[in-house]
């Protein structure tokens, strides 16, 4: 790209690389800048003053600051899927080909139709919307709100998936330092020399902080040279890590800090296989906040005119970027530090139009400088600015004593003093305290292990920053047990800082406190008048400090004005609660790689790859992928496949991977006694070699989980859980074992992942199994009766476990083999079963067969049902204590009108039942009083050749045979159904025992 001339670029100087010119576009126009520029500095170098529009009034706005506190200069950076709304031009590093657009304007930045809002400004005061738009009620959603929403908002999100990747990482250190200014570098030196593991985070892409613009002398050398030497020394230390482009945004419990590293935001797009940003969780024993201070504006009429800029930002642009925001600049300051800007401007050959100093007096040295350079010093304050979208033209000064003066200028630098960056120290809800000499809040308390140093701690001189930083670094290292010699602290002069507080210059015209949200001084007065005096009410009523700059330039001024109008002191007025993150952080970074298919882990069953070869359709069950059914060519839908699978099992033999069940080995002499306490039924009397169905309650008497548990040896049980509760039951049992029943000699081992388990079901099960297990194993009804359980040897010598249990109601076994043999077992079952017509079946067929048999499962074990509700009340032992026993007896849990499990059959056999339909007595109008339950599980039963279901129905067991109504207004399907026994198939269980 070829850019136009950089009209506002100095011939020399600055930390830019003039050998690396970069082209970029802003609002479609082509410009040029250099490596080392930010978008803001490059725009300034090109003489661009108008960069954005404000939120409410769409006022023209320019660049106010040179950092992450910027309220005005927000752009949409990049294009297409990478478009980033609300990007601060002041922190966006320039790269070749950068594309940015102004936002919140239509049709263009220069001619924004929404600026018509300014005409309504007399009505659009703080909170005006709470007083109107109420009539007629329907108009809010239809008319008012859509209009407000369209007008509000700032930039546009891309609207399509973010193509970039984000990473998350952990880091650990002794001492974590936020900020690489003099205090931060001195802290790193002291801590590093002491032998501490140090991490220093700097949000900028260059290390050094304010001296990058303001210079200074440290240890007798220019600050730049000292920074460079210090970096060399730090690099030579064994464990000091400096992370640039990394902002510490929050501090959490246990010394955990959050930081965001903008790894590749300075490039058009991340290089292949690299991430855009990385979220760091840094665990530090001590942390030092050396994040500096933020210069604050003064509130006066027209203070938002493009060309009005913070004084320190003017210096940053001139010194660091060799870019001149104005040619003839005025300064409005209430403190000594603002005067640095005069020296910088003169040094760069700019004209000083005037210095307006609100302090009663200025030093003779300044007077001499003014005389030499030929600019007036005016005692007073700026009362107004002439100009508009083309920038500042003229400044009106209210002189002390009442006279007025006008100053021609094309820029105005403003310094209202400095606010220490107290955010990080206040994120644990600590409130900062007021310090009078600098008229600012400084940290009072901080999260454990954290201290502030330097300007962040209210120490504004270079000498004090170095001393405080060094002392904090040395102390932090000591605290973490590092006892090396820190040496001597770097030294610099303590320049004087004097300030006369000035927050607001009263006068005509809009005077902005919060630039981005268009909160004016009169809005704050209105808020006070209406009783929103608490700073939190003020914030919420006016939206002060809630913009993307998080109030960095506005909060303190706002509450100072509130203090003034309510007749309180600033400390009495107090601050709002500081909330992380310190700078806005991309949501994608918090998510990291956890998106798309990688949102959560995927667990595959031992037979997954085999099932996949078979063309199985998989279903998500928790984290598991389970085979849902195995479609065959020519089958028209899932129902046809599932029906075939069920018929194949009921008529021959099939198998299903049930490895997802939780499996727990319970060992020890008290294993039986332990199980007696966690199950409602008794297991201590279970014979070795037998299995039993068990039901667990929560302590509140509600059913928790079920499964079969087998006794493999006198002191060894094998317990199974449902898939969903595998981890939770283990946790619960460990709680019982460790915390409640420590006297029992029992051990628990989770073996869920150790065993592959298959259910083999159907009348030909034995024929198939005989091909799998060692011929010596007796599988006859006598040798291996129903509910038998024991270890077996498979052909080839593998040891497995075999259980004669049935979920399908057929003659069935479950067989376990070490998980690594699961795949081979599936293949062998298919191979050996080929002559028998063996059919693999999925979870759908499994579900059909359990409903036909009336077995309860997840939809019935819904966390609100009792054992009796499920028809299993008789299992509740009366001879022992167990978890949940007492609470299960509460009156409402044993009430006769509870909803209990019943079977449901449509009267018209062609009707299709649906889960979630409600049960209404026949002939009654559906309503809260006639709603008697609902359908929990349904299936098409191949055996009955119709849809059947289970339901929870009020007094259901007493009403078998009654015709009721299933009511499903959501899907518009209502049927007459018969309440019946939940066991639809083989009610006396002959098949499974056969």
């Amino acid at each position, binding site marked *: 790209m070829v850019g136009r001339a950089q009209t506002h670029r100095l011939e020399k100087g600055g930390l830019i690389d003039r050998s690396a010119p970069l082209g970029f576009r802003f609002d479609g126009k082509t410009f040029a800048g250099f490596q080392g520029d930010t978008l803001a500095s490059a725009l300034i170098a090109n003489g661009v003053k108008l960069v954005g529009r404000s939120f409410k009034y769409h006022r023209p706005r320019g660049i106010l600051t040179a950092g992450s506190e910027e309220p005005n200069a927000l752009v949409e950076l990049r294009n297409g899927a990478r478009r980033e709304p609300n990007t601060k031009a002041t922190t966006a590093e320039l790269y070749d080909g950068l594309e940015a657009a102004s936002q919140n304007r239509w049709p263009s930045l220069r001619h924004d139709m929404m600026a018509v809002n300014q005409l309504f400004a007399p009505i659009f005061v703080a909170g005006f919307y709470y007083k109107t738009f109420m009539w007629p009620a329907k108009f809010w959603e239809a008319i008012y709100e859509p209009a407000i929403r369209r007008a509000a908002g700032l930039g546009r999100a891309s609207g399509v998936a973010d193509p970039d990747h984000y990473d998350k990482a952990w880091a650990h250190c002794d001492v974590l330092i936020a900020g690489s200014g003099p205090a931060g570098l001195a802290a790193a030196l002291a801590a590093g020399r002491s032998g501490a593991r140090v991490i220093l985070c700097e949000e900028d892409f260059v290390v050094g902080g304010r001296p990058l613009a303001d210079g200074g002398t440290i240890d007798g050398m220019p600050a730049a040279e000292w920074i460079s030497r210090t970096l060399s020394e730090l690099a030579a230390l064994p464990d000091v890590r400096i992370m640039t482009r990394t902002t510490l945004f929050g501090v*959490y*419990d*246990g*010394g*955990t800090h959050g930081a965001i590293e903008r790894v590749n935001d300075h490039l058009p797009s991340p290089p292949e296989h690299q991430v855009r940003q990385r979220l760091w*969780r840094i*665990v530090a024993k001590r942390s030092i906040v050396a994040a500096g201070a933020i210069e604050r504006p003064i509130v006066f009429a027209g203070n938002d005119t493009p060309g009005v800029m913070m004084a320190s930002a003017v210096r940053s642009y001139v010194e660091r970027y060799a870019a001149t925001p104005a040619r003839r600049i005025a300064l409005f300051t209430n403190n000594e530090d603002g005067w640095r800007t005069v020296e910088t401007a003169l040094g760069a050959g700019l004209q000083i139009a005037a210095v307006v100093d609100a302090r009663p007096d200025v030093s003779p040295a300044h007077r001499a400088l003014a005389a030499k350079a030929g600019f007036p010093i005016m005692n007073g304050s700026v009362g107004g600015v002439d100009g508009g979208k083309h920038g500042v033209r003229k400044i009106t000064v209210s002189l002390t004593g009442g006279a007025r003066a006008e100053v021609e200028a094309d820029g105005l630098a403003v310094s209202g003093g400095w606010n220490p960056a107290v955010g990080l120290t206040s994120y*644990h809800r600590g409130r900062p305290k007021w310090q009078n000499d600098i008229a600012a809040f400084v940290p009072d308390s901080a999260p*454990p292990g954290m201290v502030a140093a330097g300007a962040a701690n209210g120490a504004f001189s270079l000498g004090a920053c170095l001393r405080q930083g060094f002392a904090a670094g040395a102390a932090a290292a000591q605290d973490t047990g590092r006892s090396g010699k820190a040496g001597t602290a770097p030294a610099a002069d303590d320049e004087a800082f004097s300030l006369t507080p000035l927050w607001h210059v009263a006068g005509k015209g809009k005077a902005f406190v919060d630039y981005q949200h268009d909160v004016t001084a009169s809005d704050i007065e209105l808020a006070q008048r209406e009783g929103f005096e608490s700073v939190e009410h003020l914030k919420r009523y006016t939206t002060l400090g809630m913009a993307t700059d998080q109030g960095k330039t506005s909060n303190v001024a706002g509450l100072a004005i509130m203090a003034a109008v309510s007749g309180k002191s600033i400390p009495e007025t107090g601050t709002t609660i500081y909330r992380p993150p310190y700078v806005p952080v991309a949501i994608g970074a918090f998510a990291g790689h956890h998106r798309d298919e990688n949102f959560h882990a995927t667990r595959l069953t031992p037979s997954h790859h085999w099932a996949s070869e078979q063309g199985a359709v998989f279903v998500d069950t928790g984290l598991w992928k389970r085979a849902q059914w195995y479609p065959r060519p020519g089958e028209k839908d899932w129902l046809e496949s599932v029906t075939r699978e069920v018929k194949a099992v009921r008529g021959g033999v099939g198998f299903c991977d049930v490895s997802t069940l939780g499996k727990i080995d319970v060992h020890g002499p008290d294993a039986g006694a332990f199980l007696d306490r966690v199950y409602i039924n008794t297991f201590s009397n279970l014979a070795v070699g037998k299995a039993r169905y068990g039901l667990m309650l929560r*302590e*509140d008497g509600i059913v928790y989980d079920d499964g079969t548990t087998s006794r493999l040896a006198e002191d060894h049980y094998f317990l199974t859980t449902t898939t969903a509760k595998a*981890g939770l039951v*283990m*946790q619960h049992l*460990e*709680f019982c074992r*460790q*915390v*409640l*029943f*420590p*006297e029992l000699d029992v051990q628990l081992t989770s073996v869920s992942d150790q065993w592959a388990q298959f259910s083999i079901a159907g009348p030909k099960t034995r024929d198939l199994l005989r091909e799998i297990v060692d011929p010596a194993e007796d599988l006859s009804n006598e040798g291996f009766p129903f509910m038998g359980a024991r270890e077996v040897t498979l052909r080839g010598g593998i040891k497995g476990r075999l259980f004669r249990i049935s979920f399908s109601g057929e003659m069935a076994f479950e067989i376990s083999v070490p998980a690594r043999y699961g795949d081979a077992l599936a293949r062998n079952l298919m191979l050996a079963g080929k002559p028998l017509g063996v059919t693999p079946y999925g979870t759908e067929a499994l579900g059909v067969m359990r409903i036909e048999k009336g077995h309860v499962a997840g939809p019935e074990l819904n966390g609100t049902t009792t054992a009796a509700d499920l028809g299993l009340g008789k299992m509740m032992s009366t001879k*022992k*204590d167990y978890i949940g026993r*007492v*609470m299960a*007896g*509460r009156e409402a849990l044993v009430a006769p009108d509870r909803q209990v499990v019943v079977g449901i059959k449509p009267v018209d056999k062609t009707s299709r039942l649906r889960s979630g339909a409600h049960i209404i007595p026949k002939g009654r109008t559906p309503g809260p009083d006639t709603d008697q339950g609902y359908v929990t599980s349904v299936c098409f039963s191949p055996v009955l050749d119709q849809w059947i279901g289970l339901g929870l129905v009020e007094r259901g067991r007493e009403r078998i045979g009654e015709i009721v109504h299933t009511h499903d207004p959501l899907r518009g399907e209502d049927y007459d159904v018969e309440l019946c026994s939940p066991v639809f198939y083989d009610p006396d269980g002959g098949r499974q025992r056969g």
Partner: protein
Amino acid sequence: MRIVCPFCGERELGEFTYLGDAKPVRPAASASEDEVFDYVYLRDNVAGQMSEYWYHGGGCRAWLKVTRNTLTHEISAVEPAAGVGARKVGA
């Protein structure tokens, strides 16, 4: 938040699962419905130092008794919870 597991050392919150107040003791089998109700449902819900159950499921599977300040989240002690919820002999 980080918990120093007595068996595994200092670990991140994500390895642990919270249960709740470790003060209630499970009543005897002979206890009344009222006593069990109290155990299961009523909580001091203290604002300040609280002893509570955490499960180190992402590590050693030990149940721990953690003493933590609910106002500040600061942890002052971590011990194995063995027997903490059990009725004491004679109690």
